[in-house]
C-alpha cells in the first residue's frame, strides 16, 4: 500500500490578477517505507508541495491520500501524529527563548503523551545528542545540533511519514554527512517513510529510492535512483540539471 498518494495537485497563492500557480497538476505516490525526493530549482514548487500536504498552504485542489484515507481541508489530530516536517533552516525553526527541553516537552504534551520526562531523554539519545544538551538554548548549539533537535521534535509524536525540506542545505558538508547518516539510521530503525525536498541531486541520489524532477510548478519526470546514477534522464530539463550538478 502507498503511504502517500498525490493526484492532480494544484496549489496557488493570491487571487485574480495576482494569482500565482505554484504547483500545477502534480501526481506522484510514495510507498510505505520508501524515500522519495523532489528536486528542482528555487521557485519550482517543491517546498510548496510539502506545505500543501501539512496544511500550511491553504489554497489547493486535487486529491491527496495518506495511508488510503483522503486528506481533507481540515486535518484531524491523528494526521499530525502520522506526518511531521523538518524545516530547512535550523536557525529559524527553533524558538530562540525555549530550551531544548521545552521544545520537545511541549511537542510531547500537545500530542497527549504522559511520560514526557522519559521520552525527552529517549528522543535526545535517538538523535545522538545526549543528556547534556537537554537544558540548552538554541544559541548554545551549532547548526548541526540544532537540526538534530528539529529532527527530534519531528520524531516526538512517533510519525510514519517525515517531510524533509532541504534538511542539510544550511550545513557544512561534514555536518551534512552526519545528519544524512542519522536520517538513514532512523529510517532503518523505525521503518519511516521520507518525502525529501532538495536542490542537491547528489544528496537526493544518496538518500532516495525514487525522485521527481520539477520545473515551473510541474513534475516533468519521475526517475528511480538507478536511472539517475546512469544519467538516464529522458526529459531535457532533468538532463540539464544532472549535467549541472556533476
Amino acid at each position, binding site marked *: 500500500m502507498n503511504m502517500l498518494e498525490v493526484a492532480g495537485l494544484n496549489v496557488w497563492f493570491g487571487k485574480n490578477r495576482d494569482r500565482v500557480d505554484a504547483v500545477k497538476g502534480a501526481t506522484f505516490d510514495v510507498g510505505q517505507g520508501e524515500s522519495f525526493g523532489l528536486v528542482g*530549482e*528555487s521557485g519550482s514548487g517543491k517546498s510548496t508541495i510539502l506545505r500543501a500536504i501539512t496544511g500550511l498552504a491553504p489554497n489547493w485542489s486535487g486529491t491527496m491520500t495518506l495511508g488510503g484515507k483522503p486528506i481533507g481541508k481540515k486535518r484531524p489530530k491523528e494526521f499530525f501524529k502520522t506526518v511531521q516536517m523538518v524545516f530547512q533552516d535550523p536557525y529559524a525553526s527553533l524558538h530562540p527563548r525555549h530550551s531544548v527541553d521545552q521544545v520537545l516537552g511541549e511537542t510531547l504534551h500537545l500530542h497527549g503523551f504522559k511520560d514526557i520526562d522519559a521520552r525527552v531523554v529517549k528522543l535526545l539519545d535517538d538523535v545522538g545528542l545526549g543528556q547534556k544538551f537537554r537544558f540548552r538554548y538554541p544559541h548554545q548549539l551549532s*547548526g548541526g545540533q540544532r537540526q538534530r533537535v528539529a529532527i527530534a521534535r519531528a520524531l516526538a509524536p512517533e510519525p510514519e511519514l517525515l517531510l524533509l525540506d532541504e534538511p542539510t542545505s544550511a550545513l*557544512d*558538508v*561534514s*555536518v*551534512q*554527512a*552526519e545528519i*544524512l*547518516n542519522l536520517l*538513514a539510521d532512523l529510517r532503518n530503525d523505525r521503518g519511516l517513510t521520507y518525502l525529501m525536498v532538495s*536542490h542537491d*541531486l*547528489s*544528496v537526493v*541520489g*544518496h*538518500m532516495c529510492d525514487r525522485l521527481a524532477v520539477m520545473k515551473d510548478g510541474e513534475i516533468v519526470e519521475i526517475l528511480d*535512483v538507478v536511472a*539517475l*546514477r546512469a544519467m538516464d534522464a529522458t526529459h531535457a530539463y532533468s538532463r*540539464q*540539471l544532472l549535467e*549541472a*550538478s*556533476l
Partner: protein
Amino acid sequence: MMSTLLDVQNLWVRFPTRNGVFDAVRGVSFTLGRERLGIVGESGSGKSMTGRAILRLIRSPGIVEADQISLEGQDLMKLSEKDMRAVRGQRISMVMQDPKFSLNPVMTIGDQIIEAYRLHNSASKADAYNKSLEMLEAVSIRDAERVMRAYPHEMSGGMGQRIMIAMMLIPNPEILIADEPTSALDVSVQRQVLDIMDKLVKERGMGLIFISHDLNLVADFCDRVLIMYSGRIVEVCDADKLHEAKHPYTRGLLNSLPRLDAPRERLEVLERDPQWSEAPSVSGSE
C-alpha cells in the same frame, strides 16, 4: 613565475571578547598572481575574514594585524583610512554572498551602477549611463535598459548576483574578491554566473580570490586552492589535483560528500584531530 599582485604575510584577525581574545585568522600567508585562487573551508574557518581583512573591512573591535598586505608593492596596512577608500572598489573589489543584502533596496539598479562608476571616474551622466548599460550586457543581462530602471526586489537571485558583479567590475579593479558568490543560487544559474566571472577575469587579466565552502566547485573553477581550518591554512594545492589532496582534513571533507557516481550505504564522518588547529599555517606563496 607570474607577476605577484597581492602579497599577504602573517595575517591575523583578532576579536577581543569577555573570555579573552578570539583569533579568527591566525598567521595566514599567501600570494596572488593573475590567477584564480580558491579559499575553501567550513563555516568558522576564517575564510571570509581573510577576504575582508585584505580590504581592512573588519569592523571594530576586530583587529587586523599583518607583517604586510602589499598590493603591487604598496603596503595596505600602512595606508590611512582615506587612502584605503581609493583602493576599495577601484583596485580591489568584493562580491558578497547574497545580492538581497548587498544592493540598496530603494535605489534603481541603474542609479546604483552609475553611482559606483562616477565615484571612481569623472564622467558625465550620459557616459556613465552608457558604460553601465555596456557592463550589464557584459554580464549577459538581456533587456539591460529595463533592468536599469528596475529596483532590486524585481530581480531574481541570479540576476541580482550578476548585477553585483557588473557593479564591482565597472571601476576595472585589479583584484576581485568573491565571497561565496554563487551559494545563494541554483546549480543551473551558478554555472552561468561562474562563466561570466571567468570570462571577465581572463579578458581583463585580473586576480580573483574565490571564497567558497564547495570543494567540487573550487576544484572545477580555480587554478590554485588554499584549504583553511580554524584560522590557518592546512594545505595548498593545484585545483585540478584537489582530489588527490593529502591532508586528513581535506580528505575528510571530500569523503563526506555524497556522490552520484559512487553510491555508499553510509557517508564518512569527519573525525577532527586537535592537532590540525595546532600545526603552523602552510604558506600559500607561489
